[in-house]
């Protein structure tokens, strides 16, 4: 579904991503792991178009999306969440999700009808699926940290993506919140048939949910494979998991 | 016939020299604006008012000294210092509490400052026209290439580059200058190495305002000092800084020259629309290079 080939990104000579490769098949949950500064977030930003690569190629459903602007990439069916909660902090929770649904249905330029007539059901369904249904009238900026992370995912779901990219979905969450979020991710993959690509520091989470894992180090892809394969790989153990 | 042509050409040449000397004043003012933009990232709308106050201070100082030529030279020094003092008070009392706020608020604050300073000038000096007399050595004209050019404009032509070089040396060779430049690029880093960023900002703001005051003092002998002289200069300085590249001192110089030269050119070919020419030049530059001619510091 998604194929990243030898992608490069330099910042003032610093090679943040230096030849990363990644493949994601339809219906998979793929995790990207690697130490801090390995280039995971940069890789995601390259895939979704926030950054323009200096080399390499990204294809999605056999289509070259390497140099498309973010909004076009999104329309192809890739939605994402951000590491730092990246929401519309002055709007209500409901509107946050609705904007995304409106965008998916290309109704953003409608100036004549009240937006309360648009996709209320769809929006509510998404908020229910992430467990924010009772907070619909709260201002997003006033939510708790955990709820903001959930809203992040809800906004991404509004786009009805085929591929959902999550950048550290459980960062800063309490153990209970983490558990709920993992359940959510699994449920999304099962019920909506979503393909999910995520990166994560918590190794328990990674090995719990993912079908395949890609390991990054210093901007390169070390290996991509099934969790058992990764666990056994001596290079990964040395570089990242540590010899236990 | 040939002699006539030579006279005409030298008249045109001197006309442009006068234009460039006016550009030197624009440079002094816009370099100050650019410095503040570079470090604080705030377009200081009150800059024109400080320029006007500089001119009024210069008037007051020369008046105190009567006809003594010393008065003018002292005014060139004291007027900018007084303007710097005014800006220091405004900065420490009010402005410095806003650094964490949105840019729009900082800009609106400088607008408020402009409104207040404008009326304060009216309160202190009244709405009359004032004039500043240049000392004897700078009065009259010199004949250059067989046509006359005012000595004061030649003086300005000399002063502009001196100030440019002084500013360059200051921001590249002195410690405080380097810190200010570093703060423009990366605030967090500067505060991380234990420098009080608020004071760096304060310093940059005051220095910028000092230059505005200096511009006002320099321009005073060539114009009638009066209310409203702030409005035109600020928009000109804004445009100059924009085409030069925000925060770039040499950009301010390039922008001022473009401004001064196109204006003199306009006066020659279409006097009625002379003020339109520099604006047109600005628009053309910005359409080609929306971020200015030279690299912005941020």
């Amino acid at each position, binding site marked *: 579904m998604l194929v990243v080939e030898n992608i490069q990104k330099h910042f003032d000579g610093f090679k943040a991503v230096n030849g990363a490769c990644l493949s994601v098949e339809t219906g998979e949950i793929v995790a990207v792991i690697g130490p801090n500064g390995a280039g995971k977030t940069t890789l995601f930003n390259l895939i979704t178009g926030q950054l323009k690569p200096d080399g390499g190629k990204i294809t999605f459903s056999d289509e070259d999306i390497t140099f498309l602007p973010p909004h076009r990439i999104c329309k192809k069916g890739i939605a994402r969440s951000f590491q730092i909660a990246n929401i519309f902090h002055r709007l209500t929770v409901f509107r946050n999700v609705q904007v995304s649904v409106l965008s998916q249905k290309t109704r953003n330029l409608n100036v004549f009808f009240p937006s309360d007539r648009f996709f209320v059901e769809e929006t509510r369904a998404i908020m229910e699926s992430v467990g924010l249904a009772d907070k619909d009238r709260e201002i997003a900026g006033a939510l708790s940290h955990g709820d903001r992370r959930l809203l992040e995912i809800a906004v991404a779901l509004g786009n009805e993506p085929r591929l959902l990219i999550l950048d550290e979905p459980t960062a800063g969450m309490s153990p209970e919140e983490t558990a709920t979020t993992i359940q959510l991710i699994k449920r999304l993959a099962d019920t909506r048939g979503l393909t999910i690509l995520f990166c994560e520091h918590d190794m328990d989470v990674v090995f719990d949910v993912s079908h395949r894992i890609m390991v990054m180090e210093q901007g390169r892809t070390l290996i991509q494979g099934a969790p058992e394969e990764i666990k056994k790989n001596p290079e990964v153990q040395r570089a990242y998991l540590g010899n236990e | 016939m040939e002699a006539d042509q030579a006279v005409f050409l030298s008249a045109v040449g001197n006309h442009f020299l006068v234009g460039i000397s006016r550009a030197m004043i624009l440079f002094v003012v816009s370099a100050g604006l650019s410095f503040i933009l570079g470090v604080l990232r705030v377009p200081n709308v009150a800059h024109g008012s400080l320029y006007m106050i500089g001119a009024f201070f210069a008037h007051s100082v020369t008046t105190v000294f009567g006809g003594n030529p010393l008065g003018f030279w002292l005014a060139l020094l004291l007027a900018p210092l007084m303007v710097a003092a005014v800006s220091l008070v405004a900065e420490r009392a009010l402005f410095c*509490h806003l650094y964490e706020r949105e840019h729009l608020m900082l800009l609106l604050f400088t*607008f408020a400052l402009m409104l207040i300073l404008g009326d304060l000038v009216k309160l202190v000096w009244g709405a009359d026209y004032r004039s500043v007399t240049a000392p004897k050595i700078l009065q009259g004209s010199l004949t250059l290439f067989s046509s006359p050019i005012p000595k004061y404009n030649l003086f300005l032509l000399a002063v502009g580059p001196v100030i440019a070089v002084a500013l360059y040396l200051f921001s590249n060779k002195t410690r405080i200058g380097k810190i200010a430049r570093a703060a423009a690029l990366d605030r967090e880093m500067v505060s991380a190495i234990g420098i009080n960023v608020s004071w760096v900002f304060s310093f940059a703001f005051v220095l910028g305002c000092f230059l505005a005051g200096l511009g006002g003092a320099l321009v005073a002998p060539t114009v009638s000092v009066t209310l409203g002289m702030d409005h035109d200069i600020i928009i000109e300085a804004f445009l100059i800084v924009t085409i030069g590249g925000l925060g770039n001192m040499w950009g301010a110089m390039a922008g001022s020259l473009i401004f001064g030269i196109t204006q003199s050119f306009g006066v020659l070919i279409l006097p009625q629309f002379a003020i339109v020419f520099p604006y047109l030049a600005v628009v053309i530059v910005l359409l080609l290079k929306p971020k200015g001619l030279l690299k912005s510091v941020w």
Partner: protein
Amino acid sequence: MPVASRKRILPVFNVLLLGLLTVIPSILPLFYIYIFSVIFVTAILAMSLNMVVGHGGLYQFHHGVFYGIGAYTLALMLTKTELPIWAGFLAGPFCAAFAGLIIGLFCIRLNRLYFAMLQISLGSLVWAVTFRWYKFTGGDDGIHGISLPDALLGIHRAYYVILAVMAVCLILMYRIYKSPFGITLRAIRDNPERCAAIGINVRMHQLFAIVLATFFAGVAGVLFVVVERSVFPDLMFWVLSLEIMIMCLLGGWFTFAGPILGAAIMVSLRTFAGVYTEYWTLILGVLLILLIFFLPEGVMGYLMKKIQPRKADS
């Protein structure tokens, strides 16, 4: 206060207010009718600016230019051509919107401060041309004593026309505010990067907002001619543009009706302070500083927070 009851009170309040405003000309002296007309015109202008600044998050620093273009278009059509007046009334807003589109196209490529600076430059060019083109625009004198058709003569008739136009404009702006576009615009203000990531073409939407806002600024410009029967280049001077911005700040950036309040306060303050002192701008400056420090969300924003903390109407 519960949201439901607010929803019921608001229309009643609006109708009452409109009723009050329609009877005003028969009870107040002429001068006040004039002041009210000025407030209405200024309110449309401030509302139009707030559409892009408060709701769109754009640094629209030279909004006055579009106001001026609207006013000059009508004034020039009335004095230089034989076209019917309604043509001028239509042309004003459309010319302003067209200018908004052109200037917007250039500015929209840039972000924040660069956007602002480029707009000030382009706007100042328009101002400089208007200021100097004596033969066409009247130069710095402007155009005075523009003759209007009978239906608009006399401040009473003008008042009702302006009131009606303002009501229509406010209804339209409210619809835009509540529409999917309005919400999208506020989302872009809060987080343009995220908007791009959910598939919104940020620049296109911002440009559309500028066109809409400049259209309404043009409407305000046309109405200015109806009230004052004159135009002058100060309408396009950058100081006016910043003053409109203060109105938005004063009323409340993030509210819908705030700028109306801001315009009303500013116009009345200027009128009545002007009677007692010639230092009106000093007062304005002090007021602005107080606002920045103590009421950054404006009068309306402050009240809204008091009434319904943490819940918002968006």
